[in-house]
């Protein structure tokens, strides 16, 4: 909302400078975004009177003028304009003057003749013919305002208003008006609000002879007021009205249109003016549109309407979309004779839905959708009629059509000063509260507060508390500490997550953050089969673009993107991890499962075992023990020979492996890369956080190294499992230390070496005891085809 300070001063006297005014209004709840003085960049321009115009002797298109600027000798100014005549008042940019766009005017010579300044056109002052309809745009601005020679141009033509831009919150549509903001300013500055009751003389006649109105849907249209104007004279509006419109950011057009805009700005009530002769049957019906009905709106676009939309129709067809936009057909023309003013109230939510569905957000709909005051239609339409008479734009026919189905009973709220003081943590007397409320337009009926109709946002005593707080001053409310014992702590799950961060960072991994939504095409990039259940995801119906259109069912593409980005930005190596969710769809009207994953991705000087080492470290540090690993050949994203799945019992913990070369290709990664993904909830469930000290061993250990021979494709985890299962009670540690394939052993075989540590808690182990354990191990190994080399 752009507010003209001059207009504001019609209602409340504010002599503060704009900066202090902005600050004060912001702190009482009407936030000021910015303010600007009109034509701030113009200086050194004064009103001059042209004394003489003679041709330039060296030019056939230039003339030399003598101009009286009110002091000293008249100036000699050369101009190319054709419309300058002796006696005309013109804007003169004198030596050193500044014009919009940083233009500086200096004394100079034009074709040998001295020119001591410049005569200005509208454009050169940053104006258009809308601001001064009598002036031409392609010549010097010949001023017809009442002004004096030598007067500063700002003052002379009323270009000296200040416009303050407010950010009005959606709960305060009443403040989208001069009167609404004047009321706020009056309370902020504790000054009287000078409200004005419109006075309309009328010209006789009866509005009912011009129009009849029928409201078929009183829920969507609680009130419909209409007046008729006859013998309309379309022409320009007077300067004061044009100035106020211009300062409010509205372009002046003609008196009738200007009046509707002026009243909308002043009262916050949209008005619609239409040609009575174009209303078929002179009968207006406010009804829902019929299926398939269309209207060509003022912007020249044909719109298809639905049954949910409210229209203003004549006997045959819709002439306006209620609260949104008028129809082209019924608009005001130059030959319009009789005009109907409509000042109606429509249900906000209905206007909002309609404007959205038609993709037409207008000044009117933006106001209506916030919910306007039904009581305001009358004052606004009377103000418009008053202005018609004031401007001589037509004759106001007597009588008003006013169909009012709005609730008449005002909202009442109990006045509880003690509760308000307690709620805000302040101590102010009831009388002070009462004074604030009364200035805001609230009434009292005993201990009941009567809420004015324009404050639809006030429904509860908490709302009353806010009114008090705003004008008492938020800054005056003390600062206190909340009472009670603080006993907060992180949950075990939150601590577990924090541990994952710490462990992975200690392993050299950088945390990354990626979007939770991806493109469904990414599933192709990671080679998911067409029938993969992971392709069935939670889909956003109104995405920004395909790349962010579905909630990811796997975090792998996100990590691959990160690896790709870094590889293609020439990072030689990258170790990353992310803690983020996968969104697994359930029923249509059910929320998906959001499963937190830790995803690790890396490339650079690394191989599968680098990644596996990080995963093992993570599991060990999280106290997830006794897990199982199985080769996985089926996962489409991974190298079939270099991928594994981790289990504990039947429960899958996660997957890790080298990325499939085709996937690397899809992501333009030119080196081998590795990915792991572990389910955090599963890890948490399996983690055994109990730590208990075991005494240091008292007796020495015995170590036996075994070099074993087995089939080349036997996963060696089987050997380790067998050793652990068969070595007996003294087994302390089994450690893999070498693997060999080659000429020293038979083809198709490999040699694997383990170091086995045995120790007894009760005495030094004898050789015989150790040998017996090893013998037992070898016997079990033979059963799975593993022999001593």
């Amino acid at each position, binding site marked *: 909302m752009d507010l003209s300070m001059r207009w504001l001063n019609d209602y409340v006297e504010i002599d503060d400078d704009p900066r202090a005014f902005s600050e004060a209004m912001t702190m009482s709840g009407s*936030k000021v975004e910015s303010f600007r003085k009109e034509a701030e960049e113009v200086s050194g321009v004064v009103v001059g009177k042209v004394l003489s115009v003679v041709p330039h002797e060296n030019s056939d298109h230039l003339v030399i003028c003598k101009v009286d600027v009110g002091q000293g000798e008249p100036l000699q100014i050369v101009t190319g304009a054709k419309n300058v005549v002796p006696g005309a008042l013109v804007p003169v940019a004198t030596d050193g003057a500044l014009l919009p766009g940083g233009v500086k005017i200096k004394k100079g010579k034009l074709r040998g003749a001295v020119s001591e300044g410049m005569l200005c056109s509208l454009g050169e002052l940053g104006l258009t013919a809308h601001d001064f309809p009598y002036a031409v745009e392609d010549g010097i601005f010949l001023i017809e305002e009442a002004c004096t020679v030598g007067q500063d141009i700002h003052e002379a033509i009323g270009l000296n208003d200040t416009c303050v831009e407010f950010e009005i919150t*959606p709960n305060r549509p009443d403040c989208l008006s001069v009167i609404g903001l004047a009321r706020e300013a009056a309370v902020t500055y504790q000054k009287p609000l000078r409200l004005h009751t419109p006075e309309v003389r009328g010209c006789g006649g009866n509005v009912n002879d011009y129009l009849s109105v029928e409201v078929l849907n009183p829920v969507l249209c609680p009130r419909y007021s209409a007046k008729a104007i006859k013998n309309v004279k379309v022409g320009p509006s007077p300067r004061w009205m044009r100035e106020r419109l211009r300062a409010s950011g509205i372009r002046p057009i003609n008196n009738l249109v200007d009046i509707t805009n002026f009243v909308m700005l002043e009262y916050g009530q949209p008005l619609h003016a239409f040609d009575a002769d174009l209303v078929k049957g002179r009968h207006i019906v406010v009804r829902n549109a019929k299926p398939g009905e269309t209207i060509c709106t003022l912007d020249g676009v044909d719109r298809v309407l639905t049954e949910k939309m409210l229209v203003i129709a004549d006997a045959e067809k819709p002439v306006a979309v209620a609260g949104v936009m008028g129809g082209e057909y019924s608009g005001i023309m130059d030959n319009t004779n009789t005009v109907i003013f409509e000042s109606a109230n429509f249900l906000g*939510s209905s206007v909002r839905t309609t404007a959205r569905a038609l993709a037409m957000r207008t000044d009117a709909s933006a106001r209506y959708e916030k919910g306007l005051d039904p009581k305001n239609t009358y004052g606004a339409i009377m103000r418009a009629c008053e202005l018609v008479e004031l401007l001589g734009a037509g004759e106001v026919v007597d009588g008003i059509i006013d169909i009012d189905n709005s609730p008449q009973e005002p909202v009442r709220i109990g006045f509880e000063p003690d509760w308000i003081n307690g709620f*805000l943590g302040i101590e102010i007397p009831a009388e002070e509260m009462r004074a604030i409320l009364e200035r805001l337009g609230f009434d009292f009926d005993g201990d009941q507060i009567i809420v004015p109709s324009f404050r639809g946002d006030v429904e*509860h005593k908490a709302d009353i508390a806010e009114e008090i707080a705003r004008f008492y001053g938020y800054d005056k409310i003390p600062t206190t500490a909340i009472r009670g014992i*603080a006993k907060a702590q992180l949950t075990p799950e939150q601590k577990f997550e924090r541990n994952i961060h710490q462990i992975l960072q200690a392993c050299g991994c950088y*945390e990354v*953050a990626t979007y939770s939504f991806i493109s469904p095409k990414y599933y192709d990039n990671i080679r998911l089969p067409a029938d993969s259940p992971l392709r069935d995801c939670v889909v956003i119906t*109104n995405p920004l673009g395909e790349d962010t259109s579905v909630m990811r069912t796997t975090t792998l593409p996100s990590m691959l993107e990160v690896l790709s980005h870094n590889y293609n930005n020439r990072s030689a190596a990258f170790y990353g991890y992310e803690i983020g969710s996968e969104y697994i769809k359930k029923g249509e009207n059910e929320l998906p499962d959001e499963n937190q994953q830790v995803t690790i991705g890396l490339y650079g000087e690394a191989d599968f075992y680098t990644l596996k080492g990080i995963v093992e470290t993570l599991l060990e540090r999280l106290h997830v023990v006794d897990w199982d690993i199985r080769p996985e050949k089926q996962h489409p994203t991974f190298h079939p020979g270099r991928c594994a799945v981790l289990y504990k019992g039947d429960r899958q913990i996660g997957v890790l492996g080298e990325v499939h070369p085709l996937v690397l290709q899809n992501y333009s990664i030119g080196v081998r890369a590795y990915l792991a993904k572990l389910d955090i909830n599963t890890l948490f469930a399996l983690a055994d956080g109990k730590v208990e000290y075991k005494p240091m061993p008292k007796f020495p250990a015995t170590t036996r190294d075994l070099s074993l021979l087995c089939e080349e494709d036997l996963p060696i985890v089987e050997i380790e499992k067998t050793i652990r299962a068969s070595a007996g009670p003294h087994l302390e540690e089994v450690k893999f230390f070498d693997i060999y394939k080659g000429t020293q052993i038979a083809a198709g075989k490999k040699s694997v070496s383990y170091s086995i540590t045995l120790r007894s808690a009760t005495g030094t182990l004898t050789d015989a005891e150790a040998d017996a354990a090893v013998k037992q191990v070898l016997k079990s190994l033979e059963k799975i085809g593993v022999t001593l080399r």
Partner: protein
Amino acid sequence: MKTALENIGKAAAEALQSCSDPKELDAIRVRFLGKKGELTAILKQMGKLSAEERPVIGQLANEVRSRIESAVAEKSAILKEEQMSRQLEEEHIDVTMPGRKQPYGKAHPLTLVMDEIKEIFLGMGFDVVSGPEVEYDHYNFEMLNIPKDHPARDTQDTFYINENIVLRTQTSPVQVRTMETRRPPIRVISPGRVYRSDAIDATHSPLFHQIEGLVVDKGVTMADLKGTLEIFVKRLYGEDSVVRFRPHHFPFTEPSAELDVMCFNCHGKGCRLCKGEGWIELLGCGMVHPKVLQNCDIDPEEYSGFAFGMGLERVVMRRFNIDDLRLFYENDLRFLDQF
């Protein structure tokens, strides 16, 4: 013999005098003190001496031996010391050469600051709670006093999954869920990802992070709200931070406010950083709307509370002077390594 012993003593002293390396010292020790050494050779002749001479010579011999022994020990210590200083001298390295860094990853800058904020609130007695990101419209809007077709929905452009399910536009639904499951006193913050359909540019992202907080108890006042948030700001930005509370509107709080922090750069005068306003908008807050309490089956006549919410990205951007929000989600190592 006496002379011979004295000569041995003298010879040993001379030999030790000129000795300069451990091998030579060892040879000297063997020569004079060894089993086949000169002193031993003399002592072997002790038998030939008379009973009167024997103790005298014996004593002398012991004296000579111990003199030589301590001289050898002394020399040995000197030589060892010399050798060590030589070695240390030779082993000097260029300590200005760079060290071998051990790999260590880093937390994402968003996590760094998020953790800091969580710690501040934990210290003030706030539990950390979380909830679903794909959320029912009911929790994201309706329970928060934002019915369908409410104009406030325009200010939060929402991603819809269907008519009833949205991507949460705020973490407030977690507060509602908390009020449904916990009874007052409640003191929680709910950090997490939120979604709004803002096109991606330097200052907007369709996904960002919020931290919201909620306090509900008997007798909670707006003064408590001010006090709590002022402490938070001072912990986050320093004890000398200046805050102001400015009236605002949110459908789920009443009264509502925005908290501004005085611009650290210009101290309120207005500069490029604060866009000339002198203040930087940090968070929105207010007293929980009685309707919201009622929706959660908490009696607003008995209990009151306050709530607040802030975006994380802007705070992190200001902290590290980051000018483009997209960098957070690009995960370039050259970016991640700076924090």
